[in-house]
């Protein structure tokens, strides 16, 4: 008998990136199928193709043995495919019923038939163990309950196959337990459940089978009962570590960044960083590996003063900087490369020269007093700003029509060089680099990598936060692995066991501190 779902030879390319490469993937009715892989392995792309959000460049989709064409989410819903995204698609001021029937035709013509819908929702909720009050407003619900509403929405629309994108990332442990019961109930009723995850424990606990993707390809599909977490970690991250950049041995100096027992709250008020401690010394790169969303953003924001820690201490070169403002942190000679260069790093409509002084516009020599006594003041020093820009453009090989060119006309690699130039120009003590090469081509990536290594040689402390395992392996002297806001272990990169790294990243192992 044919599998309930078969995706055959799916290919999808975004620019230079082959996100899905000849992927063939099957899921049976009544099974819970985990989709495992690093960031950028192609899991979400594959599922978005199934849900009709992307069109594949090649390959076909078969449901119940028949070839189907899915051009939009409407098509996929019609074929009985539902998807719960990581970010919920709910209307907070509406009730649960209103959210569930949103976009559906009412049995009463132009009028809503919420009573009948509510009854059906209660019925579904009972069958699948989804505790939700149909009359409650969505804004009143906990995150876990909102997720149940999303699942109800899919079931109400007759989903036979449900795709869940990192469903447990937002749940508390108790909610996760209940959620797993629901998944079981769905599988028992013959639904197919595909869930995308990074957490080994969940794969082992709930899935029947597991497919591992790496670099857009299928590494393999295994029965969960017949494998081990070590085996899965090897499939997920297993690779030859080839050092593509030349690196002299590190000469670590004094401690520059000292983070002790730090806890930081995330957007939803839950702790995103939990009692984390780490140290970065002058002249070394500490790589923070981990899957996106394990507290990286919150940690970086706490260090650079954008987010107030709940507990713990951050000191920079011996100064207590816990709860300092971004300005005070910059004054301690800490600079950073933000996660997203266009929205956090640069003012796209400013000229290149203006962007190069974004964090130092009020310092000498870029600002001065009218009589020019070398001190900073109220007026911009056009000459100094221009000279600085010319120098930075040459030193960092920024391809721009000139210092006055509008920044948004530059390519991604050159934008990042601009951010790096600004961050490194005034010899910082500490650089916090978050995803410094995300979305860049090979040439720009190598440029940035070599620059970072050169800065390390020059004695700067660098905290490299990256979800790209290759990058962390290439650049770091030591690697700390972040999982759910905690450090699972710190390893020297020399002779590192990649499988062990994979286990740490998936939360399946923890090293003694």
């Amino acid at each position, binding site marked *: 008998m044919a599998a309930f779902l078969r995706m055959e030879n799916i290919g999808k390319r975004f620019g230079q990136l082959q996100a899905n490469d000849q992927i063939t993937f099957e899921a049976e009715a009544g099974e819970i199928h985990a989709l495992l892989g690093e960031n950028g392995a192609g899991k979400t792309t594959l599922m978005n193709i199934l849900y009709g959000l992307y069109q594949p460049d090649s390959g076909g989709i078969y449901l119940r043995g028949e070839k189907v064409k899915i051009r939009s989410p409407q098509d996929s819903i019609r074929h009985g495919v539902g998807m719960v995204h990581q970010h919920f698609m709910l209307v907070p001021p509406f009730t649960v019923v209103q959210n569930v029937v949103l976009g559906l035709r009412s049995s009463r013509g132009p009028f809503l038939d919420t009573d009948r819908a509510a009854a059906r929702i209660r019925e579904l909720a009972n069958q699948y163990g989804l505790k939700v009050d149909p009359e409650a407003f969505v804004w009143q619900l906990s995150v876990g309950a909102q997720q149940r509403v999303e699942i109800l929405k899919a079931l109400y629309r007759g989903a036979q196959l449900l795709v869940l994108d990192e469903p447990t990332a937002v749940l508390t442990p108790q909610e996760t337990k209940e959620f797993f019961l629901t998944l079981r109930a769905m599988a028992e009723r013959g639904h197919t459940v595909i869930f995308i995850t990074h957490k080994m424990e969940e794969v082992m606990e709930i899935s029947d089978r597991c497919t591992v993707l790496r670099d857009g390809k299928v590494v393999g599909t295994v029965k969960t009962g017949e494998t081990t977490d070590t085996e899965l970690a090897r499939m997920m991250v297993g690779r030859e570590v080839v050092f593509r950049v030349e690196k002299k041995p590190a000469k670590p100096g004094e401690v520059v960044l000292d983070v002790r027992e730090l806890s930081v709250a995330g957007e939803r008020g839950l702790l995103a960083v939990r009692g984390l401690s780490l140290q970065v010394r002058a002249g070394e790169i500490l790589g923070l590996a981990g899957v996106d969303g394990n507290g990286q953003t919150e940690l970086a924001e706490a260090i650079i003063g954008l987010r107030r820690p709940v507990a713990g201490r951050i000191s920079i070169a011996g100064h207590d900087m816990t709860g300092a403002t971004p300005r005070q942190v910059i004054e301690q000679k800490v600079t950073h490369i933000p996660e997203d260069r266009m929205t956090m790093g640069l003012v796209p409509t400013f000229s290149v020269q203006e962007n190069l002084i974004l964090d130092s*516009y009020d310092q000498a020599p870029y600002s001065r007093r009218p009589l020019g006594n070398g001190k900073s003041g109220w007026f911009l020093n056009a000459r100094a700003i221009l000279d600085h820009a010319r120098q930075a453009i040459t030193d960092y090989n920024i391809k721009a029509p000139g210092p006055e060119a509008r920044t948004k006309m530059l390519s991604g690699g050159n934008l990042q060089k601009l951010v790096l130039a600004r961050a490194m120009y005034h010899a910082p003590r500490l650089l916090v680099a978050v995803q410094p090469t995300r979305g860049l081509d090979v040439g720009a990536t190598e440029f940035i990598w070599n620059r970072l290594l050169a800065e390390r040689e020059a004695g700067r402390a660098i905290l490299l936060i990256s979800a790209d395992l290759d990058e962390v392996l290439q650049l770091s002297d030591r690697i700390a692995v972040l999982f759910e806001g905690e450090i699972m272990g710190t390893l020297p990169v020399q002779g590192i066991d990649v499988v062990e790294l994979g286990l740490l990243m998936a939360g399946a192992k923890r090293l003694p501190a």
Partner: protein
Amino acid sequence: MTTPPANPAAALPEPLSVAGGVKLPWHRARTSLIGFALPLGGLLVAFGIGAIMLAASGANPLVAYQALFKGAFGSRNNIIETLVKSTPILFVALGVTFAFRCSVWNIGSEGQLHIGAVGATLAGLAMKSLTPNLPPILAIPIMILGGFLFGGLYASFAGVLKVKWEVNEVITTIMMNFVAILFVQYLTFGPLRDPAANGLPMSAYILEAAQLARLVARSRLHLGVVLAVVAAVLVYIVLWKTTLGYQIRAVGANPRAAKHAGINVPRSVFVAMVISGGLAGLAGMSEVAGLHYRLLDSFSPGYGQAGTVVALLGNLHPIAIIPAALLFGGLITGADTMARTVQVSTTIITVIQGIMVLFVLGSQFLVDKLEG
């Protein structure tokens, strides 16, 4: 993505090549031929549509426009009147420019203008009773300060609400317009009413030394127009030559990046709001000190709104808004002549003004598209 070829914008002096702004197309400075031609074309189209409307109401559009032009610029007196009307519009437009450059949507210029007029009047009356012998060289700066401080203080309420509690400044500033207009009405009918004014809603005259000199004898043209142009140059310098202006433009164009770079975003927003209100306050000051020499009920025929529109028409560039202010001053002045000549309502001019804004702003989108 590849690096695009050098574009002509790169060679132009600041701020033409660096006008900041993400959300609004008119933040973009016009630099090329297209950039100049399209907005002018937009103006012409607006007049074209106005012509159709004039024809539809039974007037000969050519005759009407001729009268409009004559009314605005046809004689020495008409030109003077146009300049007089342009003065408060220019002050307001400068204030709006300052706020909008920081992405602070101050729609409360009309209110700030009224409160600025109150500040100037109070300063002028206080000097009259306390220091009647003060020379103009001291009295006039005090008037300027009075207008600026009152306008700025009034705007600061909306600024605090926005910065502290994220209250939308569009709502608060619009609401505060009505408060200010009615407050002036209350003052001129009540506490400030001059007993000698035969019951008319107006205050007593301010100190003579505090009045702005007339530039042309026996005309209404006063020093205010010079002050407004000076203010335009100052706003240009502050926005593009000082660290404060840099900060404000950075916050206006990308608050997130500004915050990441250590700029105090709420403070910049607050400062932009206060300076914006202060400049609108100067419009009220100039009306009191230059034209009426006292506070009148309903002394502004909507300069606040006109100034807001002029700021947009002038692409939020302090120098470019000078001709835009003249155009609007001319339209207001010429409207009466046109209405009398072809027997149509002056409101048709307001309609044409609206269409102008629509088309000029529309052309900005187009310029952006064409220039990439």
